[in-house]
């Protein structure tokens, strides 16, 4: 059976490997506000984890802790065997292996699409100009917009911008990709083009944590769905179990509102 047909049939579990991200009793406060409460989470190689939950439940905070855009105060976060501490070397080592895609794209508006993708390659990965541009062009082909390379981000549609942002993160050859509501700022017709890229990425074996409200995507791609509520993980399970047979009342309520 070809891969296409497998996809058509619905969810295909990924071949899960070693633990890639480990969170143990992670706690985070914003001042007095307890934003993450005793988060225990393990994400394995090639696993795709979708996090859902109501607004303000701490989804963004959790994935931003994983690449140290936010600092957690208690507990351990270990990414690819490196523990997140205040050590700058560890932080930069982890960030190098972790790509992140934001809701607001956050492309660099003063640089062309091509320069957006080559900047970190050249100054972090220390690749030469020609090499990094070749990689950038390959990735632009992969996300389907090689013809936009010379444009500025402001000249692209939202969907195109988000695909550039994905290409920019991928150019660093990360082992993990973090997505924070990558489609929430997009018009419906653009959501599909971004989700297609993400599906292809999942199929290629990328370890991914995706915060999203796209339930179709979660059902189709995720190995595991996590439901968060006021800073804690309330429920976790395979998509089929999670959507068809939620255990927790809060989960049921949330799903009834959203589906």
């Amino acid at each position, binding site marked *: 059976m070809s891969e296409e047909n497998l996809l058509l049939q619905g969810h295909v579990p990924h071949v899960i490997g070693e633990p890639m991200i480990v969170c143990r009793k992670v706690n985070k406060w914003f001042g007095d506000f307890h934003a993450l409460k005793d988060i225990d989470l393990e994400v394995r190689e090639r696993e795709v984890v979708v996090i859902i939950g109501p607004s303000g439940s701490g989804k963004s905070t959790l994935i931003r802790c994983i690449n140290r855009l936010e600092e957690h105060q208690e507990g351990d976060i270990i990414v690819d065997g490196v523990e997140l501490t205040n050590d700058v070397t560890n932080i930069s080592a982890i960030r190098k292996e972790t790509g*992140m895609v934001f809701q607001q794209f956050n492309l660099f508006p003063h640089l062309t699409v091509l320069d957006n993708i080559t900047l*970190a390659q050249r100054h*972090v990965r220390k690749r030469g100009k020609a090499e990094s541009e070749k990689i950038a062009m390959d990735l632009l082909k992969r996300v389907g917009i090689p013809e936009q390379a010379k444009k500025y981000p402001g000249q692209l549609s939202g969907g195109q911008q988000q695909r550039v942002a994905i290409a920019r993160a991928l150019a660093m050859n990360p082992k993990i990709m973090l997505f924070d509501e990558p489609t929430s700022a997009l018009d419906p017709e653009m959501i599909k083009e971004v989700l297609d890229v993400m599906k292809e990425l999942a199929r290629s074996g990328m370890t991914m944590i995706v915060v999203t409200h796209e339930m179709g995507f979660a059902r189709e791609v995720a190995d595991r769905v996590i439901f968060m509520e006021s800073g804690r993980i309330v429920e976790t399970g395979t998509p089929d179990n999670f959507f068809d047979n939620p255990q927790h009342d809060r989960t049921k309520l949330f799903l009834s509102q959203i589906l």
Partner: protein
Amino acid sequence: MTDNNPNKVYYEAPPTRPAPVTQTGVIGWVRKNLLASWLDVFLTLIFTFIVVSAVVSFVVWTISNANWWAVSFNFRQFMMGGYEPALEWRLSVAVLFTVVAMGMAVAVWVQRIVRIAAGLIIFTLAFVWLVPALSTALIPIPPVYVAVGNAPIAVDNVNETARPRLAFVGRAGETITVQIAPISTDEQLAALTGFMDMPTNGMRVIAERRLQAAVTRAEIEAQLAAHAASPIRLLTEGQIARLETQLNRLIDIPPVTETLNFAQGGAVVEVLDADGNSIAPAVNLPTANERATFTLPADGWYILHTTGDDDTSINVLAVNGMQPLLQSSVLQPGGGFITNYTRMIDLFAIRGIRAVDDRAVPFFDYIRNQYWGERPFTTYLRLFLAPFLSQHALNLTYILLAGVAGYWALRAVQRWRGAAAGAQVATVALALTPAVIWIMATGLNVPDILNLTVVVGGVFAVLLARALGARFGRQPVMVAVVGAVAALAWGMPLAVFNPHYGFGLLALVNFFSPLLIFIFWVIGSDSYHASDQAEYNRQVGLYSVLTLTFLVVPYLLVQVFGVSPSASYPDWFLRQSDQRLWGGLLLTFILTIYGIVFSFPIGILLALGRRSNLPVIKYGCTLYIELVRGSPFITVLFLAQLFIPLINPEFASVPGTIRALVATIMFSAAYLAENVRGGLQSLPPGQTEAGKSLGLSGWQVIYYITLPQALRAVIPAILGSFVSLFKDTSLVAIVGLTDLTGFVNIMVVQPAFTGTRAEGLLFITLIYFFFSYVMSYVSRLLEASGSGSTRRI
């Protein structure tokens, strides 16, 4: 047939008609924009009245009253103050270089203003060449008027004698034409306008007063007569009494021309050379119909020798070809003063002693022989505008052509090497401009070269620190190594210049070098990777050698081979200019340009410092910024004047020019810091987060992501603050510097130009306006070209 059908249907398209005349064209525009409502009509009228009356009186003053010689005579001082004339060529080089660079910039970045620029250049050139040519060809220089006659000129309170000998400066081939002015009545005398000697002006004034008195008398008498003839009382007793006193007070002035026997006799005219020898036979002018013409054989002093042909009559001679002279003292390069005699119209000057008849002969002095009477527009053109323009037309042409040449040179580079190479050339040229201006203005003597060498050594030390960081990372032992580099870069200049540690570029760089070295070490260590060492090995080697060479060679030269680090070698090709002499636009520009150039990096560092997480840096920068922003520029200026010598006794010799520059930099840096900080704050935090999430270090995020965007976003604000800096430099006049504004204060104490403050201020206003406008225009171009915030998502 009338068509009143309310539901009319057109089977054919109705013919097109022009819109009503009252709604389109000029009438329509006026109706719509100026007279739309009663209030609009009222406002339009009021404002038109205000504008017209202001402009009219202004133009009238400019043309018929203003003394523009104050400007044209002092033009050099307005431009460069007392800058050494022998070094003036260097300023020309600097100006031409700058203009070439600007032409290049136009070719690269603002191609679309080329048409406007070309139009302006052609217009300017046509104006500065055609106006003088046409007015010189079409308008004769009005004659100067000199009284002649052997009898005393005594009428009313005037008691003069005509001066039989009057010295003047002539040029080879010029002709002097003398004629008795056709004046036989007081009316003609009173209507005289032009340069005239004191007796003539005295007679003119009396004649004018006499005519005026006659008019007043006639008016009063008419009023009294009307009162007497009228059946009702037109005037009160008090009014009548007042009018009668006024009438009695009117002195009886005798008719001037009659009293002095005007046009009764003739005059004998002769032109003598400086030794008193006649250059041509004397000519007798019995009436106003004859004229005497003399052609001058050489440049130099001449004497106009005039006598009456009888002992009773007085005449006024109209002399064509003689110009009033201004005597002025000029500082000699070797010391001492020399006297200059400058012709007011063409500024032809003769130096040294007035070699005429043992100085007993008075000369036709500008101060005592002013232009009196109404000045028509043609005279304004011929006496002021045309000479002024023709004096500067050639220089202006060179400057404009330099811009054109820069433009075409860059177009050639673009065609030959491509657009990227062109942009590079233009960038380098622009970046070099401040250095070229500085070197050309101050000179580049042995001390400067030593200075520059150690500065370059310092730059290499910074690069070395970065390479060390990249090669070895942030290992603890490296703190010691980098510390040693910093100590070398800081201490070596002191050793070189010991004990002549002066002040200048060196001290500035020296002050900041350890800081910079540590910052760049940290920046370099951000890209530390065990994998790519080969390149950094090479860099560490190269920069170590260069740093040592540039720091040690000056040390050897001075301390071992005995080159003096302080003596300025006067025969040196770019010898040092005395900054104390700088003034005018030169000083204004130096303060502005270097205010900008140095305050820019300092401002950026302050802005970053204020956003730093380290409390000491953060509050230190905040304190500095708020202190400076909280005090007026004038205070900072005075503080710099007073405090710089306190820092180090050596600095007592720092000229006021440099002290003012330091104040300007300190002041401007604080404002710039706030602008930049505003730009940084306006960026969404997502930019930094995206950079960090890609693994860029904090410095890399600032350098590649936030700072470029912040600077682009605040370009208008930055240029705006530079425009105000340009204008604020005028405050240095108060601490005794003669920048543009300061010079006006000096100009008006020259005896010849007392009371010309308005002319001076108007002239510098035009200069300030021109450059401010250019800067704002550039700022608008930058905004429109998308370097500003328009590229935002």
